[in-house]
């Protein structure tokens, strides 16, 4: 295919639409008068609503262009069922978290229109990551996402912790990007190409053990990706950023980038380096175990619920990495199912956390939840359901996420991984259940502020229903995840 030929734009329609929307919204925001608080609140509402709508439209576009695997832009960009599945998940997560963030932003004098635009920007980066088919496009997508996230982590400029979080994330993120780039250059040096397809061919054709340099390159790429999914030992930023960033930002962090990064992780490991799975499997194995163990252990001592959720997400990523470590279709499918369920559980939990408001101030200590069952029984019930689900207690959705992971691990005879996974899941259930205990059995304090914003109620009800009733109709998620996994492994 000659370079001059005009690329096929259809597969990238959603991304193109989102880019144009971002620019339009930026203009809309900039050229409106937002000098006073009232006007900036109004503009922010406008932009947020439009952003959510844009995400929904993008979602439909993603569905409309979905189909068999197709590449474009000189093989830089790939569209396959795996990408479709992951993008839809990212868009759902982003839309839901944006949807529940408005009241918080207004309450904390953060209602500036840039929030929505930056979130859209990050989402665009994630979609690029998911569709990356080349180390170059991978890096570009990753940086679009990261740069946007650095900014919104520090979005509450007048708050010390928020700025600290942003700065920490930025510095460490830069380090991780450096590692990723270094790894990419090593791989390029040995293989002579950055294209995933060419890399895969090259490794498939070479006999014997790969050169040590390639492996070191892979390890560095893996380290960069592990940073994005916040897997141990590249997780250090997570607790500080989760705690320091404004709660809606934390919710956003916990959902969309995680899905995108784990999707990218899978694509890179299974795609170009698929032939070398013997080599990277044991590294992923180590990272998965370290993440599960540290995630479940370190969460126990936390008193801040956002910080606890940070360790919880580290643990969840550890479980998801089990599926990647398996590396076959069942493994990939189980990761996708796990992430699908994870998105809804996490959004629901953060919706609950956003309700922890007393005297127009957010409270974040777990002890503040004491006696919630008395003052807000329905909210308490929802939170309990999410905690039980996260702990993996049947018949809630979270149980099935873990179940498929462990089933796949047992099938692949990765018994050690499965056993450690189950054990750390047991340890992990301690801190989830501790919240349930605080909610139901501790002496109640003052009630949280009324009323809960409608948007949060809607999301809470929706996610609760999904988590509780997943058992009755799991087919849509399972089937689409199976198709996605098949396209990744087969393609």
């Amino acid at each position, binding site marked *: 295919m000659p370079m001059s030929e005009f690329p096929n734009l259809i597969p990238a329609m959603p991304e193109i639409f989102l880019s144009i929307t971002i620019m339009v919204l930026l203009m809309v925001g900039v050229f409106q008068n937002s000098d006073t608080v009232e006007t900036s609140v109004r503009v922010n509402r406008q932009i947020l609503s439009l952003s959510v709508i844009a995400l929904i439209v993008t979602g439909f576009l993603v569905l409309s262009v979905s189909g068999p695997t197709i590449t474009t832009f000189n093989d830089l960009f790939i569209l396959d069922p795996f990408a479709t599945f992951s993008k839809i998940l990212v868009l759902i997560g982003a839309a839901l978290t944006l949807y529940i963030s408005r009241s918080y932003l207004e309450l904390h004098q953060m209602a500036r229109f840039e929030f929505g635009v930056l979130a859209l920007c990050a989402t665009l980066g994630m979609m690029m990551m998911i569709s990356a088919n080349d180390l170059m496009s991978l890096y570009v997508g990753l940086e679009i996402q990261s740069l946007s996230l650095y900014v919104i982590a520090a979005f509450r400029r007048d708050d010390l912790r928020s700025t600290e979080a942003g700065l920490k994330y930025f510095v460490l993120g830069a380090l991780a990007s450096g*590692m990723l780039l270094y790894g990419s250059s090593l791989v390029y040096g040995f293989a002579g190409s950055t294209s995933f397809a060419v890399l895969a061919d090259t490794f498939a054709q070479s006999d014997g053990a790969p050169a040590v340099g390639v492996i070191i390159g892979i390890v560095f790429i893996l*380290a960069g990706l*592990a940073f994005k999914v916040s897997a141990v030992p590249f997780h250090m930023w997570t*607790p500080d950023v989760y705690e320091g960033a404004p709660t809606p930002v934390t919710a956003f962090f916990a959902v969309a980038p995680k899905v995108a990064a784990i999707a990218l992780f899978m694509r890179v490991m299974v795609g170009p380096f698929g032939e070398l799975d013997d080599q990277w499997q*044991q590294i992923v194995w180590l990272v998965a175990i370290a993440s599960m163990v540290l995630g479940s252990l370190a969460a126990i*001592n936390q008193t801040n619920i956002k910080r606890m959720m940070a360790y919880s997400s580290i643990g969840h990523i550890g479980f998801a990495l089990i599926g990647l470590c398996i590396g076959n279709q069942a493994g990939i499918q189980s990761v996708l199912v796990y992430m699908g369920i994870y998105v809804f559980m996490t959004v629901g939990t953060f919706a609950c956390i956003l309700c922890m408001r007393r005297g127009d101030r957010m409270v974040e200590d777990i002890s503040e939840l004491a006696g919630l069952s008395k003052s807000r029984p329905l909210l308490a019930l929802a939170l309990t359901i999410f905690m039980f689900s996260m702990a993996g207690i049947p018949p809630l959705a979270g149980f099935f996420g873990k179940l498929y992971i462990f089933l796949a691990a047992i099938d692949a005879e990765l018994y050690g991984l499965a056993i450690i996974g189950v054990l750390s899941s047991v340890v992990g259930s301690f801190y989830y259940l501790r919240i349930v205990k605080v909610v139901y059995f501790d002496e109640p304090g003052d009630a949280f502020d009324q009323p809960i914003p409608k948007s949060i109620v809607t999301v809470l009800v929706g996610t609760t229903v999904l988590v509780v009733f997943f058992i009755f109709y799991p087919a849509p998620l399972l089937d689409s995840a199976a198709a996605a996994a098949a396209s990744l492994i087969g393609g």
Partner: protein
Amino acid sequence: MIIKAVVFLPLFAAIIAGILAFMRHGNDSESSRRVDTMSQWITSGGLLLSAVFATLVFIDVGLNGNARTIHLFTWIDSGSFDVAWALKVDTLTAVMMIVVTYVSAMVHVYSIGYMHHDHHVPRFMCYLSLFTFFMLTLITADNLVQMFFGWEGVGLCSYLLIGFWYHKPSANAAAIKAFVVNRVGDFGFALGIFAVYMIFDTVHLDTIFATAPEKADTMLVVFGYEFHALTIACLLLFVGAMGKSAQLGLHTWLPDAMEGPTPVSALIHAATMVTAGVFMVARLSPIFEYSDLALTVVTIVGASTAIFAATIACTQNDIKRVIAYSTCSQLGYMFFALGVSAYSAGIFHLMTHGFFKALLFLGAGSVIHAMSDEQDMRKMGGIWKLIPVTYGLMWIGNLALAGIPPFAGYYSKDIVLEAAYGAHTGVGSYAFYMGLLAALLTAFYSWRLLFMTFHGSPRADEKVMAHVHESPKVILFPLMFLATGAVLSGWAGYSYFVGEGAVEFWGNSLLILDSHPALENAHHVPMLVKYAPLIVGVIGIGLAYVLYIKRPDLPGKIAASIPTIYAISFNKWYFDELYDRIFVRPAFYLGRNLWKVGDGTLIDGLGPDGISSAVRIMARRAAALQTGYLYHYAFAMLCGAVVLVSWYLFSNVG
């Protein structure tokens, strides 16, 4: 249909009585009394009806020879393991049905009078009926698993009824003892069932019996040694029978079981449950017949129990315990009859014994009732004029027990002893002489009981003596019925059970190989052997008369002159003390250690407590990793990358 009614009427009665037990409100209210009465009527009515039906079944199956099996429904069907709920009724079952339903019905009626002061009448009646149901499922079982079901069920009811007065610590202890000792036997029974299943690949009785001859020479390898398969199975099954029928070694629970209400002792611990072991061996005669060793063991254990329990009965002072040891002894008779292949003689004795022993127990209950709940014979005496009907009935019971013609015991005990003699084997002779000696002691302790209880000068205080009264009709009627059985059942049953009509009567329900002609020979024994039981019986009575009426000072002197023998007998051969040392205390010691050291220190310490504290420590350390310093984080990341590379290089490239 009639057969189903016999079995399930008691169950329905038990369920209704069980529901009624929850409807009592307060102990003295009018409504509670009504509930009590209702439960008594329903269960007694159900049992009487069941007894009438059982008679019809007996006529049809036993006398007219229409043995049959009624399939109710499939229970377990898994591979070659096929178990059904079925009612197998042949002559053996029909005979047991008669004994069980009649004695049970009489005990139910008797309980109306005996228990009317109690505050838990519906519960008591419920347990009694439930017990009867389990006993009936046991005897109608057409496979070993169903038999085991009934077997465990009667064990459960026995436990519940011994501990019926659960506020008494001694009753609870006795109930637990009965349950635990029976567990030993039941374990043997269960193993026996496994062995049978291993050998025959089925637990269905008719199939087992049909294939037993082919398996007669099968060997089984256990721990590297070859054993005769059927012998192993039979011995294991016999361990179960020993537990249930309180044979030597596993007998210790039976005397203690007297802590239960007297009707319970009569029903469960004299007439029915304790005979389950005898029934089981008889029922399994088609496999026991192929193992001479097992039969020898049965004979020796039975004969030893007969004499052993009789020696203890001579020195006990609790009226119920004397009868309990007597039961133990009589069960020994039944077993050695089975051991010499005189199954029908054993069952014959089982039936007559069921009647006269129930009579004795209920009579003793009537005496206890009259003496204001006094059970110690040393505090009785001189009351025969005050309760003449009970006195007369006790005479009948004792005459039957001692084997004086024409009472029932004479016929059955005679044929048992003659069969033992007729076996013409070493163990047969052992059983015969032991049985004869036991017969002497039986007569002695029976009349000792009679004389101490009813004759001599009153030894109770005046208040009790003033209160002594004849029991009401509702208590006396069952006694009279049972007395009729004690008088007539031997004479009426002789020709059917062991006489000319026996072959036709029993049909296929018992198997005796030609190589075991004991019962045949029993009819052709020397005159002296025929009359020996009678002679020793009369001697025993005379001895008791001399010692307890003529010279009441003698027993004390005799006891003092042979202190060792007296102490052995009085202390029941020190079995309880021995078991306490060998099993109970080490078990408690072991249990306490396992609890305190094993569970508390080791498992809790290393397990739940240890793990949780370790997790807490690790959690603190893990959280401490998070210092908050950016350069620590960056350092950790770089270290991580280095570790991953090294991990790879070490594990892969080496």
